[in-house]
C-alpha cells in the first residue's frame, strides 16, 4: 500500500521531468536556427528565473503544510525598491542593505506566520494583506523607477559571469563564446539543494510533511504544529528575500509594478512540479522543473517572435489544467483502492 502511494507521487514528478525534456527538445528541433540548441539558451532560462526558483522553493514548503503565501511577488517588489533607493538615495553600502532585506524578510514572515499559526486566520487572507501592504509600501518608499548605477559591489555582482570551459559556440564574427551563468543561478541552486536536504533529513522538514498530511495526527504525535507553521512562513519570506536580491541583480532597478503576478508563477510552478495544494505531497526538485517548464514556455514564445506574449500565459494555464486534472485522477484512484 505504502509503496503504491510513493510510486504515484513519483510518477507525477517523472511526468514533469519528461515533459520538460520533450518541450525543450521540441524547441531545439523547431527553433534550431534561432539559437535554441545553444547551451547558453538553457543557461539564460536559469538566469532569468533564478529569483523565481528561490521563491518557488519557499512556496513549496508552505504548500506542503497545506497553506499558501501570495505575498511573495509584492515582497520582491519591496525588496528591489529598498535595494534601489537604499543604494541611490540613502547611500548605504550594498552588503548592509542585503542583510537588512533578509532581516525584513524574516520579520515579514514572522508577522504573517504568527497570524496564521497562532491566531488561526486563513493563510490566503493574511498573505493577501501582506501582498497589499508590501505593494503599497513599495510606492510609499518611492513612486518612480529607480535604477541602480552607483554601487560598485552590486554592479560587480550583477555582471559577474561564471564561464564554463566547454559547450561554447562560435558566433558570426568567428569568436568562440563560452556559455556562462550569473552568480544568482548558483544561489538559486544552493537554495534548492539546501531545501531538498532540509525536507528530507531534518526534523523540521519531516514535521512539514506530517502537518500537511494530517494536522490532527501531527498534533497527536506530539509535534508543535503552530511553531512549525510559523517557521515555514518565516522560511518562505526569507527565501523570497533571497529571491528578491537575485531578481534585483537581474533587473538592476526598483519599480512599483515589479514582479506583479509572480506569486501565481511560483504557485503554478510548484503545482506543475507535483506539489499538492492540500499539503503533504511534493518535492522541491519537482518545483525546480516546474519553474524550468515555465521558463521554457516563455523562451519558446520569444523564439517564435511572431506570437503575442500572452500565449505564454495561455500555454502555462493549459499545462496547469492538465496537471491539476492528473493529480485529481491519481487522488481518486488512491481513494478507490482504499
Amino acid at each position, binding site marked *: 500500500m505504502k509503496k503504491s502511494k510513493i510510486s504515484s507521487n513519483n510518477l507525477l514528478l517523472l511526468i514533469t521531468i519528461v515533459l520538460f525534456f520533450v518541450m525543450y527538445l521540441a524547441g531545439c528541433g523547431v527553433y534550431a536556427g534561432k539559437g535554441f540548441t545553444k547551451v547558453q539558451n538553457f543557461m539564460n532560462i536559469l538566469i532569468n528565473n533564478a529569483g523565481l526558483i528561490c521563491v518557488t522553493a519557499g512556496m513549496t514548503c508552505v504548500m506542503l503544510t497545506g497553506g*499558501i503565501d501570495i505575498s511573495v511577488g509584492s515582497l520582491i517588489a519591496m525588496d528591489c525598491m529598498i535595494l534601489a533607493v537604499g543604494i541611490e538615495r540613502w547611500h548605504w553600502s550594498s552588503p548592509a542593505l542585503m542583510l537588512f532585506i533578509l532581516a525584513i524578510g524574516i520579520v515579514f514572515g514572522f508577522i504573517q506566520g504568527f*497570524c496564521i499559526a*497562532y*491566531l*488561526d*486566520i*486563513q493563510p*490566503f*487572507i*493574511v498573505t*493577501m*494583506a*501582506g*501582498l*497589499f*501592504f508590501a*505593494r*503599497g*509600501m*513599495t*510606492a*510609499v518608499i518611492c*513612486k518612480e523607477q529607480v535604477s541602480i548605477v552607483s554601487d560598485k559591489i552590486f554592479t560587480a555582482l550583477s555582471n559577474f559571469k561564471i564561464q564554463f570551459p566547454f559547450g561554447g559556440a562560435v558566433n558570426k564574427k568567428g569568436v568562440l563564446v563560452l556559455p556562462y551563468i550569473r552568480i544568482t543561478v548558483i544561489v538559486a541552486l544552493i537554495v534548492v539543494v539546501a531545501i531538498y536536504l532540509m525536507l528530507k533529513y531534518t526534523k523540521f522538514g519531516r514535521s512539514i510533511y506530517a502537518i500537511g498530511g494530517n494536522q490532527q495526527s501531527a498534533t497527536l504525535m506530539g509535534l508543535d504544529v503552530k511553531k512549525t507553521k510559523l517557521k515555514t512562513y518565516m522560511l518562505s519570506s526569507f527565501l523570497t528575500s533571497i529571491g528578491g536580491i537575485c531578481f534585483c541583480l537581474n533587473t538592476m532597478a526598483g519599480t*512599483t509594478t515589479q514582479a506583479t503576478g509572480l506569486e*501565481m508563477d511560483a*504557485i*503554478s510552478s510548484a*503545482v506543475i512540479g507535483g506539489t499538492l*495544494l*492540500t499539503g503533504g505531497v511534493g518535492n522541491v526538485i519537482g518545483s525546480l522543473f516546474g519553474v524550468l517548464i515555465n521558463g521554457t514556455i516563455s523562451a519558446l514564445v520569444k523564439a517564435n517572435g511572431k506570437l*503575442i506574449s*500572452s*500565449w505564454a*500565459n*495561455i500555454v*502555462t*494555464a*493549459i499545462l*496547469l*489544467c492538465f496537471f*491539476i*486534472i492528473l*493529480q*485529481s485522477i491519481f*487522488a*481518486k484512484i488512491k481513494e478507490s483502492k482504499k
Partner: protein
Amino acid sequence: MSSLKKLTQKRLFLPIFSMILVMLINVIYDIACGNMPLQFFVITIKNGVLYGRLIDVLNRGSEIAILAIGMTLVVSSSAGTDISVGSVMSLYAGVCCMILAGYGNVNVSSYAHPLLVGILGGLAVTTICGLFNGLLVAYLNIQPMVATLILWSAGRAIGLLLCNSQIVYVRVPSFQKLGAYTGIIPTPIIVAAICIAIAACVLKFTALGTYIQSVGINKKASRIAGFNSAKIILLTYIICGLCAGLAGMVATSRIYSADTNNIGLNMEMDAILSVALGGNSLGGGKFNLAGSIIGAYTIQAITTTLYALGVSSAQAPVFKAIVVILIVVIQAEPFKAYMKKLTAKRTQAKEAA
C-alpha cells in the same frame, strides 16, 4: 453593558460598524480642513446629474458589489475563493469589444454587430468560465483556489489575444450608456441595484440559499440528506462567472474600451475582502449577502477617502492591508478567547476589590 454585547453579536455589526467608522473619518477630515462637517453626505445636482462623494462611492463601488454577490455564494458553498473574477472581467471586455468592433479594428464609432449580441456574447463566455471553474471544483474535487488559478492566468491572456494586444475603443453613445448616466442617476448604480435585488429575491423566495449553506456546512451530510451537493457548488460558480461578466460590462462601458490589461486588475482581492468584511467566514457555511454588499461599498468608501486624503492609488494598498488585518484579527477565535479571558480577569479583580 448587556445591550452593547447583544449589539456586537449581531451579524451585521462588523460591516455597519466599519462603514460608520469610515464615514466618521471623513467627517473629522472635513472639519479639520475647514470644510462643511457633513460634506461627505452632501448630494447636489451638477450639470444635470447627481454629484457628491456618496454618489461617487455608490457609483465606483458597483463592480465590487456585483462581484461580491457571486463571491459570497462561492465562498459559502465551497469554502474557497474564486480568484479568476478579475481576469474574467477583462475577458468579457475582450469578447464584447471584439464582437462590437469586429476583429482587428482598434477604434470604431459604429457597431459591427448589434449591441445586444456583444453583451450577450460576453456574458455567455464568462458564464462558461464559471461553468469550467465549477466543473473542476465540484466534480474533480480540486481546491477552488487552484482550479480558478487556471482562468486567473488564461482569462486576461485570451482577452488580450482577442483584442490583438491593443486597446479597442467603441465610441458609440449607446455602448457608453451603461457606464454613464440614466437621467440623473449613474447607470452602474442602477445595474448594481438590479443585480442585488434579483439575488436577494432568489435567496429569499427560493430554498437555494439554504441549500448553499447546508452544502457549505457539511457537503457529505447534505448529500445524504438528498441534495446534489456537486450540482449546487457548480451552480454557485456559474452565478459567480455571470456576476464577473456583469461587473466587466459596467467596467468596460465606463471607459468605452477594452483595456484588457487593466480592467478588473486585483478586483478579485476586493471582492474577497468585501466578503470577509461582511462578517462571512471564508471557511464556508453560513453567509450574509447584505453584509457582503455593505462590505463592498465600505471598501470603495475607504478607497475614495484615501484619495480624498491625498494618498496616491499606488500607496492606498498599505491602508487596505492594515484594515484587513485588523478586521480578521478581531474576528479570529484565539483573539476572542484571549479577550474573554482578559475581561473575566478584570471582573474577578473588581469583585475581589
